[in-house]
């Protein structure tokens, strides 16, 4: 018995003495690897550099920053062991509604002629607020009725999309004020994304909110016995995810300078993909915002690289699907490997 204990003790020491790399490091290597492959293929087939083109890189990061804003919320949901399928539809819904109060009086067909030329804070606040409410409803459903997050957010996904179509009977909302459009111009979407990422990176790592989020994902029973009000916390997490989807909707409308009912379709899946590629485990308890940021950039590099190599858009989707599945497979093996030690 005694030797047994001693042996166990040493093995523990060994595991601990190996200095652990931050988990993002691996993902970062993957990002570099993908970029490098494009660089080489670029020189081989296109005759130019993939990376030495600041314009391409800017466009690339701009394209994914909306996904990134959503993914920051989705990451938190997935860390609790849940899922949010509604974000793409919430983007569409909040884009439409916020744009409808962001129209300029110079636009002849304003939806609410009396509500034109409002300061940008009104449509932005409204969009973010509606996203928050949608997420809050998700959270309430999940916490109170105990239905699986998949179903609750699937319902929201369908209904929110319905709202965005019903809102103008399918008509786009255009003629937005310059003040509103401003947050979609230039590098602003990227800044919004990075600020959001920073805020929630800090929240997850240094606040009680973050500690509870991980605890619930790691073991919901243990979290409950430790005095955490699991239901209230889940409502918070889903509300935040909804709020960020709302913000993403506002940015999307501002960037396009118009809003359409079909905006944000499939964004939820891209956000989930970015999260999972970034190392967040679908079983909960594991994940970081830094990983998600890198995962988002990987998605961007992939899309941008395909375009750069003039790969057919259809192939792009096929390969993207494969990469997402591969990321999860790697995650599963990582978990297995860990259990063996």
């Amino acid at each position, binding site marked *: 018995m005694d030797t047994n204990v001693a042996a166990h003790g040493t093995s*523990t020491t060994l595991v*601990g003495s190996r200095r652990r790399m931050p988990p993002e490091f691996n993902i970062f290597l993957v990002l570099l690897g993908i970029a490098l492959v494009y660089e080489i293929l670029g020189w081989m087939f296109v005759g130019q550099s993939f990376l030495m083109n600041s314009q391409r890189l800017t466009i690339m990061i701009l394209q994914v920053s909306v996904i990134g804003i959503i993914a920051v919320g989705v990451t938190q949901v997935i860390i609790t062991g849940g899922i949010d399928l509604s974000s793409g539809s919430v983007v569409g819904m909040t884009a439409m509604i916020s744009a409808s109060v962001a129209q300029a009086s110079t636009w002849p067909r304003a939806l609410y002629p009396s509500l034109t030329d409002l300061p940008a804070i009104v449509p932005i606040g409204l969009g973010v607020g509606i996203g928050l409410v949608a997420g809050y409803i998700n959270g309430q459903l999940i916490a109170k009725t105990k239905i699986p997050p998949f179903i609750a957010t699937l319902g929201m996904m369908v209904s929110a999309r319905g709202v965005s179509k019903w809102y103008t009977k399918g008509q786009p909302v255009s003629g937005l004020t310059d003040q509103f459009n401003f947050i979609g111009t230039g590098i602003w979407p990227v800044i919004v994304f990075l600020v959001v990422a920073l805020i929630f990176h800090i929240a997850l790592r240094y606040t009680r909110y973050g500690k509870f989020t991980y605890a619930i994902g*790691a073991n919901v029973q243990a979290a409950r016995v430790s*005095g*955490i*009000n699991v239901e209230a916390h889940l409502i918070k997490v889903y509300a935040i995810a909804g709020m960020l989807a709302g913000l993403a909707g506002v940015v999307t409308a501002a960037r396009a300078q118009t809003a359409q009912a079909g905006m944000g379709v499939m964004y939820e899946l891209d956000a989930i993909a970015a999260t999972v590629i970034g190392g967040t485990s679908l079983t909960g308890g594991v994940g970081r915002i830094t990983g998600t940021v890198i995962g988002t950039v990987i998605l961007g590099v992939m899309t941008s690289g395909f375009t750069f190599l003039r790969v057919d858009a259809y192939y792009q989707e096929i390969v993207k699907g494969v990469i997402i599945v591969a990321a999860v497979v790697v995650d599963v093996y990582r978990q297995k490997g860990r259990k063996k030690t």
Partner: protein
Amino acid sequence: MTLSPTTMAAVRASGAIPNAEYLLSAEGVRKEFPGVVALDDVEFKLKRGTVHALMGENGAGKSTLMKILAGIYHPDRGEVKLRGVDIQLKSPLDALENGIAMIHQELNLMPFMTVAENIWIRREPKNRFGFVDHGEMRRMTAKLFERLKINLDPEIEVRHLSVANRQMVEIAKAVSYESDVLIMDEPTSALTEREVAHLFEIIRDLRSQGIGIVYITHKMNELFEIADEFSVFRDGKYIGTHASSNVTRDDIIRMMVGREITQMFPKEEVPIGDVVLSVKDLTLDGVFRDVSFDVRAGEILGVAGLVGSGRSNVAETLFGVTPASSGTIAIDGKDVVIDNPNTAIRHRLAFLTEDRKDTGCLLILDILENMQIAVLQDKFVKRGFVSEKAITAACEEMSRKLRVKTPNLQERIENLSGGNQQKVLIGRWLLTNPRILILDEPTRGIDVGAKAEIHRLVTELARNGVAVIMISSEMPEVLGMSDRIMVMHEGRVTGFLDRAEATQIKVMELAAR
């Protein structure tokens, strides 16, 4: 000579079954789980046409042995013989095909399939088109039920059946494999007296057909009623096998508990203060009833009882995990309502749960995160931000005090041994500075050294005036540590024993009725 299970199954199917004195035997079996030796050099021999009861306290190793015989676990050492032939069972299916069927405590039937479908699953009779022949299946089931005198409709979906009837279906299923050996794990725990009588009738019937039945039970009277022989296990060791006709109840209890108390318990007589927690008529409908007791500062109240006696449920209710249906809880003489763990923590209760993995550890998180999670409710947090420095220092001090063996606190808790995990979880609760500490199986599955350390710690806490409620299945622990022992049986308190008068036999009598 070791035959592969498939060869053995083929031999069996050919009808050329070798004759042997014992249907099934095991010798020198050893099984270790991380941190504990579940079985140590154990033997077991089952004769044909007998009912062989397995007796022992919780954790004695009965279930582990049965799982080895049923192919669920694989022994680290030792041999299992089927009709005198060495055999290595690789899976439950292997065991089944060799005529060993196990009926688990938690029944394994598919609720939305019919009785007949459940029985013949994987072996459904087919018609000439290769589709399942439901008519034939019904006839086969009816025949089987007739043989077993079971009165059930083969076409009914299992979810509509009572627990007792589900048990009958399980038995019929086991018999349908033409099993020679039937293993039953506490089959009567959910049955009424009439249902038990019917079950025994079936068992006697099977016995007369030459089937050997292994019967795990805690109930003494069943042993005398149905068993021909019984084997006793204690702490993973084989104690002996006897015919049940020439022993008394007291003999058996002595065999079950009669170990020398070799472990030293650092029990100290500490001044016992005022009543801190007073529980009156606490009831959780359908689980336990009218539980009343007091605990004083500095007192260790042991709670004994068999698994399923409601011990852990009382603890969960006290801590607000499953709020009570009725009854009162008073702290310092004032009635309080505890309807969730958060309230319990605010009243300075702490609760080390029974199942480290399920309700204790945040397995994939590190020691620091595991230790701090309960205290973050009200301390170490300023405007939502956790004061990392202060809490890390507190956790470091705690883990030093508890002697958690780990290179650093960033180690994932799942990499620690059971004893060290338990220390981290105890640390989690001590950080909240509790006045009432509920410990549910505080030393289950951990090694002797860590056990002693935890006992010492509990003593120290009592000395500092903490009221301790300690639930334990380990007799020496309960007897060695407690000032008073409350014994429970089937959801009721059956008695209190003072430290001076408590003996293993007295506790067992109250617990096993």
